[in-house]
């Protein structure tokens, strides 16, 4: 049973998992937030898609003998469409690519064979090397498709990447799970680059670090979106993408190059166990990024307590995820003066000093869906959080390690931004040179 909001998704998912004729009954949408009395009326009413009474439909589905089509077994190959498009004019190819959902609805660099070959020179890896195998029925849709170095090169051309960016693109593609996460909550991703490659690719981590002021920042973010659409059939609205309002960060994601030189702290990739001279791409998944202007005490003329301001921002976030605090070097230096000479010290203070009651936590919808099941399995801290008296104060985030920091910015003002995102993984760029 599904609600009517997921007609297409439920049917295509069943088909992709080998059950194209699986009986699915639909209810009105949403069922969330309805009282038992309202749900009782719903159960006794019609399926809004089939038009039949829901319970009659269920009984019929369980008792009507199978048709020959429902008994069918075997392997069915699925096509992703033609291997090439054209020959046609550039303008027509733009239309074809856009109309087939292969772009971000902005003009792309049309990937001719010559351009793809030029991009492939950016790596020593063979074009036919498999980055990810196609596997039926594993996790989300994005986990099921397969792709090669060549597939990634085509998307890198489209995004406007230069060949020297290609190792970064391959590192991104190699993690096996792409972006445009299909949640109804409209998730988004951040991509953090560390290591000497930042300067080699002229990445911007100074003034306007998060704005469109460097080709590398812009296109590395853009290719993540294009790969998410094309390499894994992600981003099909109503099917593999369900974000109710969508997320503007999806256009080129939140690409950050850390200012390792002007940061008083250890670079993020070193915190994760890489050597300083290694080139690394790290992924964060969550929802959004917001300015610190809204924090209590923000803009204070004398002695701005940035730790308290950051803590205040955390109280607007989903505690089931994490926080990525993006500090201008001026803010980082001030925090060191406050006594936080390491990112870990600051994370520990924020974790211990950003609290809410257990009652508030339990009433959070995301907590019920994502962490209550973990509590039932006895996993901590969730098991304890669901047992303590409801007025007990508990941390906003499960662990201090859910709170991360990165430094970038042009030092024109002491500002910070906070993304409600959790670190998911880091990958070596160097192996893709």
């Amino acid at each position, binding site marked *: *049973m599904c*609600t009517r*909001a*997921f007609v297409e998704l*439920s049917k295509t998912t069943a*088909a*992709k998992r*080998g059950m*194209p*004729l699986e*009986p699915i009954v639909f*209810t009105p949408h*949403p*069922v*969330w*937030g*309805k009282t038992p009395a309202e*749900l009782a009326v*719903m*159960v006794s009413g019609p399926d809004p898609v089939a038009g039949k009474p829901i*319970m009659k439909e*269920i*009984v019929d589905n369980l*008792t009507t003998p*199978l048709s020959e089509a*429902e*008994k*069918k*077994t075997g*392997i*069915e*190959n*699925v*096509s*992703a469409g033609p*291997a*090439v498009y*054209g*020959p046609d004019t*550039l303008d027509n190819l733009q239309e074809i690519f856009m109309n087939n959902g*292969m772009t971000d609805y902005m003009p792309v660099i049309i990937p*001719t064979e010559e351009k*793809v070959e030029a991009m492939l020179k950016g790596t020593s890896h063979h074009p036919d090397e498999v980055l*990810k195998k*196609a596997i*039926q029925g594993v*996790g989300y849709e994005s986990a099921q*498709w397969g792709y090669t170095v060549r*597939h990634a090169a*085509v998307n890198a051309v489209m995004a406007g990447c230069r060949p020297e960016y290609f190792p970064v693109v391959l590192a991104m593609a190699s993690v096996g799970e792409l972006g445009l996460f299909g949640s109804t909550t409209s998730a988004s991703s951040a991509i953090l680059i560390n290591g000497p490659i930042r300067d080699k690719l002229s990445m911007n981590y100074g003034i306007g670090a998060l704005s469109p002021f460097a080709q590398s920042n812009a296109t590395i973010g853009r290719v993540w979106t*294009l790969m998410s659409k*094309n*390499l894994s059939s992600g981003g099909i609205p109503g099917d593999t993408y369900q974000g109710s309002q969508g997320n503007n960060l999806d256009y080129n994601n939140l690409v950050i190059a850390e200012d390792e030189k002007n940061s008083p702290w250890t670079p993020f990739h070193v915190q994760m166990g890489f050597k300083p001279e290694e080139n690394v791409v790290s992924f964060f998944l969550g929802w959004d990024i917001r300015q610190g202007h809204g924090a209590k005490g923000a803009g204070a003329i004398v002695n701005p307590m940035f730790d308290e301001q950051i803590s205040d921002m955390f109280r607007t976030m989903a505690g089931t995820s994490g926080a990525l605090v993006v500090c201008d070097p001026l803010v980082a230096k001030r925090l060191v003066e406050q006594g936080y000479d390491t990112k870990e010290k600051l994370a520990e203070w924020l974790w211990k000093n950003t609290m809410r009651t257990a009652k508030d936590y339990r009433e959070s919808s995301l907590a*019920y*869906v*994502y962490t209550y*099941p*973990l509590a*039932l*399995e006895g996993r901590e801290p969730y098991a304890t959080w669901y047992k303590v008296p409801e007025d007990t104060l508990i941390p906003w985030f499960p662990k201090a390690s859910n709170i991360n920091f990165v430094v970038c910015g042009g030092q024109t003002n002491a500002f910070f931004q906070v993304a409600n995102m959790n670190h998911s993984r880091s990958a070596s760029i160097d192996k893709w040179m």
Partner: protein
Amino acid sequence: MKINRRRLLSLLGTSPALLAGSVVETEAKTKSVRSGTGSDVKFTAVSPKGTPPAVQLYSMAPRLDTLDGKTIYLVDTGFFGGGLLLQEMQGWFQQNMPMVKTIFRKKAGGWAADDPPLWAEIKAKGNAAIMAIGH
């Protein structure tokens, strides 16, 4: 000395976009030898799509001749509202089809997690299952 290419081009009164276009033009002229001239120049583009997996088709489970005397599992995935909906459905069966035995179960783990022990229980003790996704 590192040259700011964009600033240099702007000082020359030239846009990088125009130069990018001229590269395409050059390419197009080269192509035009093979596939057309002027505005008819045509190109072949490589598809950016990955490879979808082949699909193993499964036969649907044989249907029941009747639900009377049978056991139906009502499985809540844990996502919003699905559990309450199934509980109302259980009430409907009790009122309207009392010969049907229904067992309500919340699937273990998160909403997307597998629950092999529950599937084994349903296979051993049930005749059918209805799973509600919620939302």
